[in-house]
């Protein structure tokens, strides 16, 4: 068992390295010199040369990459061109906000998605089933930025129940969490439904029914536990994708998180900041997927006992 965990962790190292290399190459083939872009055109050439040397941009790209990895391993992501602060500090300041948003969205998606999926099975092919499955499909088909604006218009402007944006009181979290969690809730509901339906076709369910148990009892005592395996795994993967998907939600609701930093960095062409925020998020996603794999392993006794 420990062997599997160690193997799985080791196998994610090349992926991590590959991802850093991909980010690095993509960001460093930008046409034009980053220093010139950053300082406008009216700077004397000597300054440009000096700043380039300061940022090690005059070295071969391979050396730059190794430096970058070495520094990143030490928690040093460089200094933001525009804000002139350490990228690591900026990211660590913003991370709790993104995490809080992702956790709230996750809780929303579970609280809504799981019961919706179960109800759809209990009332299979009824109005409730179609309603939930329709909403789930809506969740996937709705652009996140648009549903955010729609909620802002209805709940903040028309009804005045919730603050439009900001991040200074718990009420501010409700709309962003719903917007970010809606799609995930839909996926969870659909998966819960299909997985539960599959389990309900098994022999031991027929046995449970044959001994006279009510549908509800069969569902909760026999079927649910077994149908949860794929659902739990997807939940873990979704935590990761929410951390990265929060980019748009943070932009719409002005939440000072990692996603906002990344978008601002693109707009101001702040290379170290963009590089740092993307790398940070991607590592989180990879770790999230790793956690999902390990969770699956721990939950499924069939794999565990092998």
């Amino acid at each position, binding site marked *: 068992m420990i062997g599997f965990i160690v193997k799985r962790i080791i196998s994610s190292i090349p992926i991590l390295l*590959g*991802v850093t290399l991909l980010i690095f190459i993509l960001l460093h083939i*930008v046409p034009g010199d980053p220093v010139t872009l950053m300082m406008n055109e009216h700077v004397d050439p000597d300054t440009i040369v000096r700043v380039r040397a300061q940022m090690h941009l005059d070295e071969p790209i391979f050396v730059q990459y190794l430096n970058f990895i070495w520094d990143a391993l030490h928690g040093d992501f460089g200094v933001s061109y525009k804000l002139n602060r350490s990228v690591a500090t900026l990211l660590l300041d913003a991370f709790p906000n993104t995490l809080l948003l992702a956790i709230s969205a996750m809780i929303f998606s579970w609280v809504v998605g799981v019961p919706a999926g179960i109800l759809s099975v209990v009332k299979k092919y009824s109005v409730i089933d179609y309603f939930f499955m329709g909403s789930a499909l809506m969740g996937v088909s709705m652009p996140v*930025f648009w549903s955010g*604006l729609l909620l802002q218009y209805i709940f903040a402007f028309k009804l005045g129940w919730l603050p439009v944006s900001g991040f200074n009181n718990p009420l501010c979290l409700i709309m962003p969490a719903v917007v970010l969690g809606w799609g995930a809730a839909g996926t969870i509901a659909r998966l819960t439904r299909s997985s539960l339906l599959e389990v309900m076709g098994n022999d031991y369910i027929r046995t449970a029914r044959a001994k006279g148990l009510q549908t509800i009892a069969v569902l909760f005592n026999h079927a649910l536990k077994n149908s949860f395996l794929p659902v739990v795994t997807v939940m873990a993967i979704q935590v990761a994708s929410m951390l990265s998907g929060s980019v*748009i939600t943070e932009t719409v609701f002005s939440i000072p998180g990692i996603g906002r930093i990344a978008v601002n960095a693109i707009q101001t062409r702040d290379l170290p900041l963009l590089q740092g925020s993307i790398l940070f998020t991607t590592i989180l996603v990879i770790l999230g997927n790793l956690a999902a794999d390990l969770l699956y392993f721990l939950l499924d006794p069939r794999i565990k006992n092998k």
Partner: protein
Amino acid sequence: MESQQQAIEQSQYLEESFFAELIQSFKQNKSALVGSIVLVLFISAAVLAPFIAPYDPYNVDMSQQFQRPSAQYLLGTDMFGRDILSRIIYGSRISLVIGLIPTLISMVIGTILGLVAGYYGKKTDYIIMRLADIVMAFPSLLLAMVVMYTLGASLLNIFIAISMVNWAGTARVVRSQTLVLKEKEFVEAAKIMGVKNWVILLRHLFPNCIPSLLVLFTLGIPDAIMSEATLSFLGVGVQPPMASWGLMVSTGKEFLFMAPWVAIVPGVAILIVALAFNFLGDGLRDALDPYLKQ
């Protein structure tokens, strides 16, 4: 020769029954049918845009700024007095192109790499699949954002960004199917007869992947449309004054509380088209998955 003939006949038989079954199951699946109808409307709007748009989508008329939806302007006007309905009709062209072309490119790349990886195995497989792992590990929106940062915002670069992100999923599916298919007798037979590898890939393996590719393609289109809308919303996609739905929502958001229709209406268009494709994709999957059909 005979067995090759047989294999061809068999694949023709497969194709016929495949389409017959598809039509049969679509007759029963109302949401897929509704999805198809919406899509026909969407595609006709895109193709016939100059003929059906009531106004010029780029015509600025400040005296008509922020008109509410009315008989004159069915969906109202935006901050420059441009007719929103006309802009949505023209915007459908961008969405259609963005939906089709990058999805097609990424499917072609993914199919070729998936077939090659699955068929040749060993090192080739290892390298291609690790590459796919890396791309899949990368949150797709962030990857697209990085590509747009590097290449600059333009329609062509959106093609590149979306294609670069989406091929890996296709490659995985095609590879896993190829792994199963290459053990089948008809591949074995073709090999013994000395059929060239690329012919086996193209004539024997590829046709068997078409049903899954069709589903992936249908579900990939709304994804691509959504990616374009999101990139444009974040300001790294289509640039003004082009009428892209995502960009329309983005510019309209400044006036959300004053003239909500400017931002909300284009979003409805995205929602309807994405929903239609998802209905169709789900319908296709149900129709093609014998396991689910039971």
